């Protein structure tokens, strides 16, 4: 069956006037400056107006043009959560370049793989990312590949150059430039990319166009009735697709964004203080951050009545924990959002009240002009049956950058008829409940979500197996006592000798994004094979996950926040790495 949303009922939001609203991302800042001179982006209690942001984006755009950046070039955006990062995203799309936000917490090896995958030619950054930028540049130079990175913009002064191929442009030079106005772009020109781990150890980059981005922005705007009085928490890092709501929708609505630096996400009691003092009205994050806010945010001492929308998506929010959160957000609608970064948000479910059962919170129904099918063996399934979620929507990506084989796998083009057009096969499994709401039912493949981050287990395994210390790695997700998930790696050497786990962990630190690093390691005593002689990863994963879960329930006791419970799994000898090994307990994240 096909679920088609109705297309009219939420088209009542008054501002901005659709006839004057920009149709490409590059014009958003000027549009916001026209509509609301008092709005802008707040950081550290200070407002930077839309007019000032427009000017700064124009100056950075000029610098990019001076460095030879032209339409379609890939511009790396490497910042911690900051106005500077927001400006860089807008600057890139302003001149028709493609913004490639990078994970500021990622290891240099992973950053280098992204930079090479999409051919980043200019990197915009700032001082807080100085070390990581130098590590990246050094690694690229060492690798001696034909990487395309030519220039780095934004460090406080020209750097001593380890790689003569790089031009360093100081931040001061950017501020001296005359601003460039937005250049015209075609709506089907690429605008930004979200990179995600592939299944082979090679990252893949989801390319969105100006049209797919704006289609998303318009739907969010109408669906949430955003207006210039809204204060939108800008909490997610730009390499995480959840961030686009604050990034693009705030200027579209001529509202005000409030930057939430990473430190506040680590300190829920400070975060809740900030949300109260900034009178935030809109929140959107992975469930993890909301859950931390509820558990450790001292919410009984805060007034969060300004919040009118609290959105979460990317993974499952524990239903039993929802009531406590809702009690502290008296005026908020809690909305569970579904949509892979390839298609953006495509369905949602507004909680009518605290869940009364432990049934997974629904992902709801598709929004306007979006079709979802549940497909098994090429046919739509009946209600209640499980099928793969196929999506058709104007918010869908253009495709993966430079990966025709992946595009051929994930897109299905159907000619004519009721199901005509291009469909994205999500790899997600869904089911329709009796009441018509969709429920997320897991994955077809080995992709998992950990604290909102999408991780392919094969990707982590492939990276770990590059370490000379081991021959084989199998990675499993385990559920911790507080309900959040973490990765555990089972490793083995073919000769049966004891692997040097510290060295494997060092290798992981260098080559994996922080969110994809295993929190502990288990030495496998045996490696089962399938009937056809292939490694039976499924069985091994189940064993690791089960053993870790047992270890957690045995040690966590009744206090879910205090005991450290390094797993003591049974499949073989296990140990955690000697240093920098996060405990099983608690959680990290963004």
């Amino acid at each position, binding site marked *: 069956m096909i679920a088609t949303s109705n297309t009219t009922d939420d088209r009542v939001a008054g501002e901005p006037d659709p006839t004057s609203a920009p149709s490409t991302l590059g014009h958003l800042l000027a549009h916001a400056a026209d509509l609301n001179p008092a709005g802008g982006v707040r950081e550290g209690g200070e407002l930077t107006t839309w007019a000032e942001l427009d000017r700064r984006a124009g100056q950075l755009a000029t610098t990019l043009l001076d460095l030879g950046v032209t339409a379609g070039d890939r511009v790396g955006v490497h910042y911690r959560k900051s106005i500077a990062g927001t400006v860089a995203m807008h600057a890139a799309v302003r001149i028709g370049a493609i913004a490639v936000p990078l994970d500021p*917490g990622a290891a240099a090896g992973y950053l280098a793989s992204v930079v090479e995958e999409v051919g980043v030619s200019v990197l915009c950054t700032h001082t807080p990312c100085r070390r990581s930028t130098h590590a990246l540049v050094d690694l690229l130079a060492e690798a001696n590949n034909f990487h395309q990175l030519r220039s780095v913009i934004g460090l406080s002064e020209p750097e001593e150059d380890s790689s003569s191929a790089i031009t360093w442009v100081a931040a001061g030079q950017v501020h001296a430039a005359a601003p460039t106005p937005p250049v015209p772009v075609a709506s089907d020109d690429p605008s930004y990319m979200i990179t995600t781990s592939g299944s082979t150890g090679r990252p893949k980059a989801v390319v969105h166009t100006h049209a797919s981005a704006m289609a998303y922005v318009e739907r969010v705007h109408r669906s949430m009735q955003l207006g210039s009085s809204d204060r939108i928490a800008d909490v997610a890092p730009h390499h995480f697709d959840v961030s686009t709501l604050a990034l693009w929708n705030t200027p579209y609505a001529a509202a005000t964004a409030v930057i939430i630096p*990473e*430190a506040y996400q*680590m*300190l829920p009691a*400070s975060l809740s203080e900030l949300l109260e003092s900034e009178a935030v009205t809109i929140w959107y994050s992975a469930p993890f951050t909301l859950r931390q806010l509820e*558990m450790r945010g001292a919410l009984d*001492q805060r007034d969060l009545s300004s919040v009118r929308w609290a959105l979460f998506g990317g993974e499952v929010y524990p239903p039993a924990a929802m009531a406590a959160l809702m009690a502290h957000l008296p005026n908020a609608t809690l909305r569970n959002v579904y949509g892979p970064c390839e298609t953006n948000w495509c369905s949602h479910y507004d909680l009518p009240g605290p869940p009364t059962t432990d049934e997974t919170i629904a992902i709801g129904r598709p929004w306007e002009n979006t079709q979802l099918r549940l497909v098994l063996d090429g046919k739509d399934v009946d209600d209640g049956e499980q099928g793969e979620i196929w999506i058709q929507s104007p918010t869908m990506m253009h495709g993966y950058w430079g990966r025709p084989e992946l595009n051929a796998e994930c897109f299905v083009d159907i000619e004519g008829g009721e199901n005509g057009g291009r469909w994205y096969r999500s790899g997600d499994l869904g089911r329709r409940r009796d009441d018509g709401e969709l429920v997320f039912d897991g994955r077809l493949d080995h992709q998992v979500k950990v604290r909102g981050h999408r991780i392919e287990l094969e990707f982590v395994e492939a990276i770990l197996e590059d370490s000379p210390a081991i021959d084989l790695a199998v990675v499993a997700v385990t559920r911790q006592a507080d309900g959040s998930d973490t990765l555990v790696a089972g490793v083995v050497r073919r000769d049966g000798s004891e692997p040097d786990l510290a060295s494997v962990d060092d290798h992981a630190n260098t080559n994996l994004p922080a969110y994809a690093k295993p929190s502990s390691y288990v030495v496998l005593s045996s490696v089962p094979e399938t009937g056809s002689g292939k490694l039976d990863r499924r069985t091994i994963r189940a064993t690791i996950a089960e053993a870790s879960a047992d270890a957690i329930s045995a040690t966590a006791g009744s206090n879910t*926040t205090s005991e450290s419970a390094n797993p003591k799994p049974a499949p073989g000898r296990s140990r955690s790495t000697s240093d920098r090994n996060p405990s099983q307990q608690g959680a990290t*994240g963004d």
Partner: protein
Amino acid sequence: MTDMSASDRSFAERLLGFVRNEVALDDITIEGETDLLLTGAVDSLGVIRITQWMEDEAGITVDPADVTLENFQTVDRMVNYANAQGANA
């Protein structure tokens, strides 16, 4: 780190050692006054582990409402906070 008694110093040094060796994600040199949070040297899991360590080692109870930038931005601030809570040294 200033004006600390001998026993304070030992607590402060042990906390610094724990943060340097067990918690810090990056290779930056961490001193008592190093900003651990805005530099990304410690992530949210690290903060949770530090509070657990303080509870275990200093015998205090860390109220979640106290886990703020003011109290946890640097090792020095953590030591001051723990002392104010009556930490055993």
